[in-house]
């Protein structure tokens, strides 16, 4: 049985933040997860708060921390330190981020022709966040035949009134479909396949030059930016982005696509590399079967394996298993939510509310906020406020109660802040 100073359960943003922080402090850390999740679905931005009318992520944290029971009340103060630290770790893997807690929250285009609120984004998306100067135009450009990015639909959507939420949008929005080399006959064209084509430097130069040619034949008559699907390379992203900036006559920025999300994959890969470089271990694929506890203390974490369980000896566990979609919370047909690993008490609405409230209700669905309630050091607590479960277990990420991350867009901030704090508390 291998031995670790800490086992992190879950390989999303929260789990990997905690694991890298632990490995940074010299701890032997072992990440165990039953599969990949949030990073592979996410837009790759680090969303701290997206509430309407919030000027900066810092203001968003302050506002949410005052909401009753929000995890920012516990972890919000740590995001300021954790965020630049994490961006440094990721940048070392060749993935640069722009923005910080005081950057303005701006509205940037989506792949369905709406906008969403973002402040901290990968370098490749950052040009989409700048304010639009008078007269500046936008070209939405994608490869023809690619079903996850329709330039015409997006351009039409972005020209609609109100879509830029009160900020000035581009003076004009144009759509441009370009035929990319050798993709017409591909049956299985998704963002990931395009990204891998962009990893090939000769192919991508050809593709980018075709865009440049088509742009010049259009005689747009404006300066501005060009929105591209987020497929500018996976392994060789930094070079692909540099090529795009060099070859295209307009300033390019990426627009994230439906899953599999290439910006999310890049983030996952950079986080994984940072962990492995610090001697951390990662095992993805088997659900946690059990956490062994003796006299109230954790002794080992056991994952299912091909036959016998695979056990790691440890005294400390950080639970970052996610919410309902990540599998950290399991919805039972009896109308209750169950915590998947330790059967911790779940703060949750009564089952009568499950179907009584419209899931798309503007005020939010009560199930969104379900999760594990913790003390100030992220130890799980029960309804009476007393800590529950074994000692030395901490909760991080979207398993924490009180957040409505779909609406508040606070998931990444909570993940980073809580991952950082959980690791720090565990090291102490």
């Amino acid at each position: 049985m291998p031995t670790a100073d800490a086992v992190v359960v879950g390989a999303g943003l929260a789990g990997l933040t905690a694991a890298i922080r632990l490995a940074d402090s010299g701890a032997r850390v072992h990440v165990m997860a039953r599969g990949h999740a949030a990073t592979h679905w996410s837009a790759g931005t680090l969303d701290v708060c997206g509430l309407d009318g919030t000027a900066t992520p810092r203001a968003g944290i302050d506002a949410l921390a005052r909401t009753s029971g929000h995890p920012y009340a516990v972890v919000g103060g740590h995001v300021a330190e954790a965020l630049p630290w994490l961006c440094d770790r990721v940048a070392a893997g060749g993935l640069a981020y722009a923005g910080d807690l005081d950057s303005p929250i701006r509205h940037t285009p989506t792949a369905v022709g709406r906008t969403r609120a973002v402040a901290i984004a990968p370098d490749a998306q950052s040009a989409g966040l700048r304010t639009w100067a008078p007269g500046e135009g936008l070209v939405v450009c994608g490869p023809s035949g690619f079903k996850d990015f329709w330039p015409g639909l997006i351009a039409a959507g972005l020209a609609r009134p109100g879509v830029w939420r009160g900020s000035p949008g581009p003076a004009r929005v144009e759509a441009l479909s370009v035929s990319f080399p050798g993709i017409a006959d591909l049956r299985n064209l998704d963002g990931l396949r395009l990204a891998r084509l962009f990893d090939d430097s000769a192919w991508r130069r050809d593709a980018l030059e075709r865009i440049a040619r088509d742009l010049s034949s259009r005689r747009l008559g404006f300066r501005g930016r060009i929105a591209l699907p987020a497929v500018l390379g996976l392994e060789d992203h930094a070079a692909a982005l540099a090529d795009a900036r060099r070859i295209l006559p307009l300033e390019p920025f990426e627009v994230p696509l439906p899953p599999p999300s290439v910006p999310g994959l890049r983030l996952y890969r950079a986080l994984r590399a940072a962990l492995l470089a610090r001697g951390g271990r990662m095992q993805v694929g088997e659900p946690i079967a059990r956490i062994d506890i003796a006299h109230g203390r954790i002794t080992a974490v056991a994952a299912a394996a091909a036959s016998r369980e695979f056990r790691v000896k440890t005294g400390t566990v950080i639970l970052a298993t996610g919410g309902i979609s990540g599998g950290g919370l399991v919805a039972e047909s009896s109308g209750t939510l169950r915590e998947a690993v330790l059967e911790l008490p779940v703060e949750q609405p009564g089952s009568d509310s499950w179907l009584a409230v419209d899931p798309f209700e503007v005020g939010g669905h009560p199930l969104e906020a379900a999760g594990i309630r913790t003390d100030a050091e992220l130890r799980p607590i029960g309804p009476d406020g007393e800590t529950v479960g074994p000692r030395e277990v901490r909760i991080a990420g979207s398993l924490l109660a009180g957040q409505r991350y779909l609406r508040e867009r606070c998931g990444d901030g909570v993940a980073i802040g809580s991952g950082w704090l959980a690791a720090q508390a565990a090291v102490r």
Partner: protein
Amino acid sequence: MTIGELVRGAHAEAVGLSADECLKCNVCNTVCPVARVTDLFPGPKYVGPQAQRFRLDSLRSPGSADPADVHDDGTSHPSTRSPDRSVDYCSGCGFCTPACPADVKIAEMNNRARAVMREGHRPRLRDWLLSQTDLLGRIGVPLAPIANLLLQNRLGRLFAHAALGIHHAAPLPRFASRSFRSRWRKRQREQGRLGHSEDGGTNGYRPPPSRAVVLFHGCAANYQEPWVAEAAIAVLERNGYEVIVPDQVCCGLPMISNGLYEQARNKARQNFGTLADLARLGYAIVGTSTSCTHTLKAEYREMLDLDDADARAVAEATWDICEFLLDLHEDGRLDTRFGRLDRDLPYHPPCQLRSHGIGIPALDLFALVPGLRAVDMDHDCCGVAGTYGLKREKYAIAMAVGKPLFERIRGSGAREAACDSETCRWHIAQATGLPIRHPVELLAAAYAAGDVEVPPGSQDARGVGGVGRLPTGS
């Protein structure tokens, strides 16, 4: 299909119904090595949970078709088959299942779908031939000089390429001039312990389970690489274990991969006949082939639906050799007096090892050997996936999948590399021109190096444990 049939199907076949858990999130497609390199395979999601809705009859086990589903000509009803044949391009590496956040048994589902697709058709001669590793070994070893000549002969290979569909450049290993079992019997005879090897020791002296392990050598170590089995024996004996080599047959994995489920079930039952009782007596069953041991651990139950007491006893007793040795080490019982092996060692953990869910034990063992600088190449799959990369229409895919790995190994400047699985070793050796060793060969060599540095006293090598050379390949 009625609700009652669905419920019965769910009981018999959890794999097929796990498609219901699919979120359509595409994570599986991001880890698929085959979809990474070819448009012929649309990815595990599409041929798996997505296509599953067209395959209601895969809620039964392949090889157990309901006569009502089968036409007179032996083909199954079209509405119950895979929507197209693209699932045939799945290599079976198994990466999709562990990547899934919703526990969908994608790889298993696809393997069953392939088997069902082939039901009612006579298997292609090529697929049948490639899955008969036992039979080929029994013929090939006695005829090794001729067989090896044929295997390496360019004209012969071109003929096999055209007539059979076995790619002319694919690695076909040389047969050993003497099988491992025959060498082992000779050694046992010389030591007067023959009964031991013939029947697992049931009529002779047998050491207690605390001091002996059962070796499942598999076909490759028996017919092609006896030195791998002998390195394992040397390392196990060095750590105070006697090794029992009971009668055994091919684990059946090549048959499972080629859709011959009934034949694979026969192999499994024959293995249960000799292994299950030993497992119940408490012996660990240790193997050097990560694919054979994974078959014993999981595939008999998950693929072949042989989930009985014998299957469970064998599964729970089975260990990969490195898993077993690392477990010894973690208990403080591994002899760590390894000598220096000053070298860089690129290491590729094979797909089948990762399906074990046991981490990467070889890396921890390599770290115990002074001077050995083992580096995980951190690449998904070498491409060959058992017999997949040998096939004419798939060889180019296999080479493309493994290309970054081959480049990394060659770029490392190392003079050899390591990998736990035999078909991967042969494929990587062929592609890189370097010898690729099983981790246990390096451990045996490190013990031997230590013995030279410090004479081992009472330790005797007993004629085993010589670290052999890899065949030069075809």
